[in-house]
């Protein structure tokens, strides 16, 4: 099942913008509304657009299931390992051991309303990226799996 050329071209044009906006929502999760779940869903919307405009046979060349599975598993593992890492630093599980230390993603924030910087938050941006990867891979994989179940007429 293939959509018309207009739909395919529009999907192609929107796809990178969706990915970039989703990435923005994920990486700015600790400063602006949004976060891992929302940003991952936005990125998955971009790939969903690409998937519904093409046939399954055509899409598997661009979106590989093994890549998406890897993406998803890596996101969840990043979350878990970040949590376990704080155990190694003598903090409770998922304790924020990176924040306000001055190191990587640990700039000290000034109290009160301020525009903020990407380099703050400690563990929170890392967890956001992990969850974003997981949601992106997971939702895309669900759509791809469901598309694989549709019976297509052979061209």
């Amino acid at each position, binding site marked *: 099942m293939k959509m018309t050329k207009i739909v395919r071209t529009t999907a192609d044009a929107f796809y990178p913008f969706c990915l970039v906006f989703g990435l923005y929502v994920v990486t700015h*999760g*600790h*400063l602006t509304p949004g*976060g891992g779940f929302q940003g991952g869903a936005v990125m998955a919307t971009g790939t969903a657009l690409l998937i519904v405009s093409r046939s399954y046979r055509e899409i*598997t060349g661009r979106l*590989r299931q093994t890549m998406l599975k890897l993406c998803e598993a890596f996101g969840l593992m990043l979350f878990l390992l970040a949590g376990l890492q704080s155990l190694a630093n003598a903090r409770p599980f998922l304790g924020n051991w990176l924040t306000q230390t001055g190191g990587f993603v640990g700039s*000290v924030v000034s109290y009160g309303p301020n525009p903020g910087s990407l380099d703050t*938050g400690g563990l*929170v941006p890392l967890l956001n990226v992990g969850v974003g990867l997981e949601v992106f891979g997971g939702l895309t994989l669900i759509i791809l799996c469901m598309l*694989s179940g549709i019976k297509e007429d052979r061209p």
Partner: protein
Amino acid sequence: MRTALFCVILLVLAGGLLLMATDLSFGHPLRSDMDDYFIRHGQYQTGVNNIVTSIVFDFRGFDTLGEATVLFTAVLGVGLMFRKLHSGEEYEND
């Protein structure tokens, strides 16, 4: 006849619930100690400007791990459900 009576009773119950709900004062919880604590100390303790994210990913990080696991399990279930369909000769991907 019974269906009409059932519908009328349902309508009256729904209307009563709606009327009761309008009497509730929105935005004034009985105990707001927890909310006040998060609003006052959230930015200072976690270094995150977005209070909602500081609760979801820091104060309640374990809960978020559970949510991520739920999504992972859902994807696993969908993958299992469609496993037979594309293990055949037709859809052998990558």
